């Protein structure tokens, strides 16, 4: 009876091909559900139109409200991405398909890598659509191409942090009922930010909470890079630091949770 440990033949190339296979799986699922994908893209556009026209704003933002609102909506969309990640991971866990993946001789982390690659792609697509609609509404980036790409980078970095929080929550909660709770809770968390209004226009204590919301840091830095109202220089570093800090906490937690599925 053999007791020698069989080494993984080529861990790096397996990890890459398996991650690509898992990403392809998500892309194939999109191709199957164009309506769901479209709804996901249209939802933030609806919010943008609602706050731009129906609710009306510009509570002393010091410029065109649309220039304030669009970067805020971009950040909010990244924050709400947490929900989508959590739903997808929860569904997989409850369907038994993750059991099959885990019983295959594949790279263990590929399930999570595929999830993040697909979610990041979807978020990049969402940003593109929202920026396009914002442009049509009269929003303009004034900061030049380098600053523009920097802003997009900050938004995606923030989304990446939300993604791993979403994976962690799904692995901890793992039940559709708890997904619902998170779906409801992201709203106050998203709205306790400077996405729609400046903290200056709020009562002092609320303004302080809003200032500290990591999403506000990203929104402020992005406004700065776009050269619009509500931007403050010096926030780029906090907009980098906050998501990195969240990743330092939640990435290992999520990976650890996934490994502990066998406990």
């Amino acid at each position, binding site marked *: *009876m*053999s*007791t020698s*440990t*069989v080494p*993984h033949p080529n861990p790096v190339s*397996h990890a890459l*091909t*398996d991650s690509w*296979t898992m990403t*392809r*799986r998500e892309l*194939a*699922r999109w191709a*199957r*559900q164009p309506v769901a994908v479209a709804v996901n893209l249209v939802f933030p556009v609806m919010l943008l139109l609602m706050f731009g026209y129906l609710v009306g704003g510009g509570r002393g933002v010091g410029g065109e409200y649309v220039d304030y609102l669009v970067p805020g909506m971009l950040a909010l969309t990244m924050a709400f991405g947490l929900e989508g990640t959590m739903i997808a991971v929860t569904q997989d866990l409850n*369907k*038994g*398909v993750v*059991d*099959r*993946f*885990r*019983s*295959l*001789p*594949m790279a263990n982390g*590929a399930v999570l890598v595929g999830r993040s690659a697909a979610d990041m792609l979807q978020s990049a697509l969402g940003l593109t659509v929202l920026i396009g609609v914002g442009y049509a509404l009269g929003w303009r980036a004034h900061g030049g191409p380098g600053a523009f790409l920097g802003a997009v980078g900050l938004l995606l970095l923030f989304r990446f942090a939300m993604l791993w929080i979403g994976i962690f929550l799904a692995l901890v909660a793992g039940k559709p009922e708890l997904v619902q709770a998170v779906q409801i809770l992201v709203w106050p968390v998203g709205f306790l930010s400077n996405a729609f209004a400046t903290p200056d226009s709020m009562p002092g204590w609320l303004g302080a909470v809003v200032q500290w919301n990591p999403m506000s840091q990203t929104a402020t830095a992005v406004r700065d890079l776009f050269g619009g109202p509500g931007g403050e220089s010096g926030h780029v570093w906090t907009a980098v630091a906050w998501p990195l800090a969240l990743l330092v906490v939640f990435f290992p937690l999520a990976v650890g949770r996934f490994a502990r*599925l*066998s*406990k």
Partner: protein
Amino acid sequence: MADAAITVEGARKRYGKKDALDGLDLTVARGTVHAVLGPNGAGKTTLVRILATLLRADAGRIEVAGHDVAAEAYAVRLRIGLLGQHAALDEELGGPQNLEMFGRLHHLGARRARARAGELLARFELADTGRKPVSAYSGGMRRRLDLAASLITEPEVLFLDEPTTGLDPRGRAEVWDSVRSLVGGGTTVLLTTQYLEEADQLADRISVVDAGRVVADGTADELKAATGGDRVDVVLRDAGQLGAAVALLPLTGVRVDPDRRLLSAPVTDRMAALSGVVRALEEAGLEAEDVALRRPTLDEVFLHLTDRPKEAV
């Protein structure tokens, strides 16, 4: 045993205060079909999940295809197939897409994965499903695809965890046929089930588990003989005559169920018992609605082996 495909010695797994496995021992010879029979909560699924590297045991020596499931999980995964209780498929995708994906994850490469998917779809009569998503499949089709997905690399050891639970009789027959077609190819099959009939139909040997340990082990015939073998059931037209029937029928160990007007007894010589019962009823002028020989139910096996009834399923 040198020629064992599965060796389990003293496996323990505890969830909170409950022992899911309480020192379970099991040996399955290569190339055989082995059924693990027991009620819900007996530890069957925990056992399969440990053998399939999805769960770690707290203690025990556990080897599959010659490799330790904890220390050499990768080597084990190369050699096993798993059909879990819930369909382990991507429901949004079609059958071919699912099988190709699993083939790629077995590192067959794109071309071989596609060819293997085609072979398996044809073999399980799913070739014409095309792009239809798995969520639109019937229960039996889904189970067949799930089984195909667990056979991508012709595994040395195949685990089937309650493969027919929740299927209608037709779906069940389909799955039984598929499992039978595997046997003879050298694959070792470990099957869990709540149905004695299923174990009887498919397995060479049966281990009866209860409360996380094996309480009996043997061929179907051995187990049934130990349990008292076949039974004869007699349903009378008039419940008032049950007492008289018990007194005059050539049977021992009779159990009476007045609500169903039923009396039931173990028999050894099936045909002699049947003709004896029929003759005695005729001579006494007792009218019977039904006289039937049958195998013991799992409840009866349990009652016999554990001296307590099987918990409600």
